[in-house]
């Protein structure tokens, strides 16, 4: 873990960065990282797809089934009361993590995709009408495109897209031009999953609010890297997936301002989301339960709490600082490779390097890196309109976590040289 072997500006990583100095110990917390793949030590650089889980998260799931399993809410027995308590405690932890005003503003979902669908279908279909407009950006993941297209199709609203520069930066001037009193929803990502580019989200929200539009922030790629404060952002909705922030799959969060959630109809109906049911009339439960029909992912919520505590314990500012140093080191190193193009080359990024090499398809890069134990992603990253804008069919993407090391980037670099040697 000797930084001296690199050319990186050491000031990027303060002497006192706790992660840098405890990296071996931190890696011990992630059992999967010790694994060999194809006979090589695993170098996991696909963190933007999903992060690995620390042992305390894995244990939380197994402990839940060993000691706590029961259905939550309304149970009068010991286990049900305890499981309910833990599930609601997880909700409070999420509330604190993103600084929501109240735990009732935290709805548990299956993931960011379901969170966006919930907001789009419950709010969008109820309050949008023919001629209204929805603004998204060119950077969006399909999950923040398709639900809005569907709302447009059903309501007659129109989808408007904020263009980007060749480097993947949001063109704010063009955004301002799109704003008018017909715009009812502005739904934009905080960090691009395909490029790692950060968007000027504060400014986007501020201007949207000035014209009275509802705002949704896709925080899926931001949540593991940045300190999130939904009150200071001022957004109406904020969504993320648990598995991208070291929690399990199948659990996600929709944050919504209480007054908005109150006036939205349920997204799904059934048990748990009701207060009383007769065949004549059903009275819905209060928020957030109104949006959590059926038995939820109880162990997922509890394990997500453990993941958040783990991240808090490391300290998100230290994480950002360390990951930023990895990112700059990787960009610097990869820039040495002839014919390698990095997409989204801006100073304002989080933990992703998206690239391709002239005349070598990203899928071939991915397969050859895999034979060296290096896991990256190759493809369109569920952002086909962005790929079209960049004029590529796919890119190769290396994405980092605090458990990655500078040596792993050296391995990536060597594996890329091998790729070029083999293919050219």
């Amino acid at each position, binding site marked *: 873990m000797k930084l001296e072997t690199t050319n990186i500006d050491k000031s990027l990583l303060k002497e006192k960065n706790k992660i840098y100095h405890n990296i071996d110990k931190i890696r011990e917390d992630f059992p999967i990282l010790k694994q060999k793949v*194809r006979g090589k030590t695993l170098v996991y650089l696909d963190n933007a797809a999903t992060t690995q889980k620390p042992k305390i998260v894995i244990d939380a799931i197994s402990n839940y089934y060993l000691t706590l399993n029961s259905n939550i809410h309304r149970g009068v027995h010991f286990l049900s009361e305890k499981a309910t308590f833990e599930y609601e405690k997880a909700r409070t932890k999420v509330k604190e993590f993103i600084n929501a005003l109240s735990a009732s503003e935290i709805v548990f979902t299956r993931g960011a995709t379901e969170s966006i669908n919930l907001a789009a279908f419950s709010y969008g279909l109820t309050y949008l009408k023919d001629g209204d407009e929805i603004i998204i950006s060119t950077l969006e993941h399909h999950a923040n495109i398709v639900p809005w297209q569907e709302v447009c199709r059903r309501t007659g609203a129109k989808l408007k897209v904020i263009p980007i520069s060749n480097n993947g930066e949001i063109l704010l001037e063009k955004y301002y031009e799109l704003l008018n009193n017909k715009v009812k929803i502005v739904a934009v990502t905080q960090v691009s999953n395909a490029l790692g580019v950060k968007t000027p989200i504060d400014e986007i929200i501020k201007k949207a609010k000035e014209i009275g539009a509802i705002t949704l922030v896709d925080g899926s790629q931001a949540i593991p890297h940045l300190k999130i404060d939904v009150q200071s952002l001022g957004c109406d909705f904020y969504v993320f997936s648990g598995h991208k922030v070291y929690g399990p799959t199948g659990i996600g969060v929709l944050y919504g301002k209480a007054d908005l959630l109150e006036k939205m109809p349920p997204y799904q109906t059934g048990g748990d989301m009701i207060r009383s049911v007769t065949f004549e009339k059903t009275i819905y439960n209060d928020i957030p339960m109104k949006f959590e029909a059926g038995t939820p992912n109880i162990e997922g919520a509890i394990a997500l709490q453990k993941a958040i505590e783990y991240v808090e314990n490391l300290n998100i500012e230290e994480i950002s600082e360390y990951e930023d140093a990895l990112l700059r080191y990787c960009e610097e190193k990869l820039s040495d490779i002839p014919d390698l193009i990095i997409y989204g080359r801006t100073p304002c990024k989080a933990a992703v390097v998206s690239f391709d090499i002239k005349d*070598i*398809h*990203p*899928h*071939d890069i991915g*397969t*050859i890196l895999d*034979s060296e134990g290096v896991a990256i992603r*190759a*493809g*369109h990253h569920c952002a*086909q309109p962005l*790929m079209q804008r960049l004029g590529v*069919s*796919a890119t190769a993407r290396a994405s980092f976590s605090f458990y990655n090391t500078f040596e792993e980037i050296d391995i990536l670099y060597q594996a890329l040289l091998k790729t070029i040697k*083999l*293919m050219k």
Partner: protein
Amino acid sequence: MSDLSQLYQEVILDHNKSPRNFYKIENPTNFAEGYNPLCGDHIYVYLKIENNIIKEISFQGNGCAISKSSASLMTTILKGKTVSEAKDLFEKFHKIITSDPLKDIEIEEPSKLKIFAGVREFPTRIKCASLAWHTMFNALEGKAEKISTE
């Protein structure tokens, strides 16, 4: 030979670098477009069939080394074949890239196809190898857009 060099054999790399029959046939009798959403590979296969014989076959598009070389090799093999021979070769190719292990199946000519057997070790790449063949098959079946010669 390692799995990787099995996959990226010389012949495959050569076809990737200089693909054969890489152009568009004007007025084809059969045509289809193939798309692999996993990698964004896009391919167009054009055929000119006269009296049930493939007189001319070509492709265009972009894709990874495996899909491009597979398409290129396919065009060299299918030229001059009858439609039913082409369909038969499609079946054989499919067996080669999915069967396990190779000795379990008997592949006669053309042995050129066998170089794609290495793909079996990389399940995510099977679709890359088969894209051109599926597209060609669809073109023969007229499942995709069939361009009128009129």
